[in-house]
């Protein structure tokens, strides 16, 4: 079947099998490898991206279900203004080691901050509770997200 998904503002049209998972569409068909694919079983959150602005696990959504919808991936975090504060926060706070969980963590972090610009530590931990990091012990990830909350985007400051 033919599927057209707007990924990071660009329409991507491909012929896919109906069973194709969104994570594979994004990585293989659209060639955007920033979204990772880990457990396959909606446990790890490495595949987290946004569908219509909602953070979801893309290994548990069919590409067909996203037909006609908007998908946002980690590649969209950096803009002409530079890195997203979430990305900068992960750099500043050493929020990653191997980096496998990082794209998913950052997409959830940005989603959280867009809805709740000043989250408590508990709210941050709750937000990433569906994601697994084998390296960091989460502490630096939480600090990275706190750093991002303390350094809002320039566009947000102006708004």
């Amino acid at each position, binding site marked *: 079947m033919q599927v057209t998904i707007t990924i990071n503002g660009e329409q991507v049209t491909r012929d896919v099998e109906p069973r194709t998972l969104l994570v594979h569409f994004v990585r293989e068909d659209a060639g955007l490898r920033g979204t990772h694919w880990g457990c396959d079983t909606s446990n790890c959150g490495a595949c987290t991206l946004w569908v219509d602005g909602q953070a979801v*696990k893309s290994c548990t959504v069919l590409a067909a279900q996203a037909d006609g919808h908007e998908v946002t991936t980690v590649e969209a975090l950096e803009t002409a203004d530079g890195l997203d504060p979430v990305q900068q926060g992960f750099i500043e706070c050493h929020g990653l080691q191997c980096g496998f969980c990082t794209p998913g963590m950052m997409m959830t972090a940005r989603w959280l901050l867009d809805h709740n610009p000043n989250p408590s530590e508990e709210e941050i931990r709750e937000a990433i509770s*569906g994601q697994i990091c084998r390296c960091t012990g989460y502490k630096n990830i939480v600090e990275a997200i706190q750093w991002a909350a303390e350094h809002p985007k320039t566009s947000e400051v102006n708004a």
Partner: protein
Amino acid sequence: MQTPAPTDYVRATSVANAIALLEEHGEESRLLAGGHSLLPMMKLRVARPEMLIDINELDELRGIKIEGDEIVIGAMVTHREVLESPVLAEHYAIFREAEKVIADPLVRNRGTVGGSMCQADPSEDLSAVGSALKGTVVIENSSGRRTVELRDFHEGPYTTKVEAAEILVEVRFPIRPGAGSAYEKVERRVGDWPVCSAGAYVVVSGGVVSDCGIGLTAVGAEHFCAPDAEAFLIGKEPTEENLRAAAQLASDASDPSPDQRGPADYKKHLANELTYRALVRAAAASQGA
């Protein structure tokens, strides 16, 4: 790599269209709601539908509203919408308390009320909430709609009264002025299925319990409820002694199986203790504490 077996896919344009598609494609077709139960089952080949009928675009199945003295939750309302609903929070704290511990925020963004109810997992938290509150579901087929009590909805694990060419369209809960409610869950790790959960609503008037409901999940209680415990409490003061006795009756209504989440006696203990804690908080909330 886990991927579903080949299947076909079609998007329903209305509830009537979804029913027509179910009739057209027969037994091997399945409705696709949030997909967070069905797609994992398809990856494991536990489910192998030949046709998926996607109902995600059906706005008529969305929304939480009040109709008369009932709260109506559309089948495609997501767990997150339940968690954040001011209407539900105003009438029943149990929804927020249960949703906070259902899966994780990303799954809650996608998973739906109707999907969870129809999946009818014996450990489903929403089923315990629905049974505690004595809700009803509305099921539609090509000849019309019918209403089924949630305490009569389950035919067994993973099976419900929803027949092949039917769709659950909404879940309804009576509003009970003065009711307090609460939910308690023990899980091994965040986002997991419960080892045991218990939920309750209590209405205290004139110093005694005039109405109550108790729901249990993951411990094999028939229809996720504990009617003997409820009957015991009616007309009694919500004292520690009475609530303890009711919790024991709730535990007696459970019939858990031992598994990797724990032995049966531990789960029975949890059914008792969690019911007690939910009753204490629900009764206190009803009395304005």
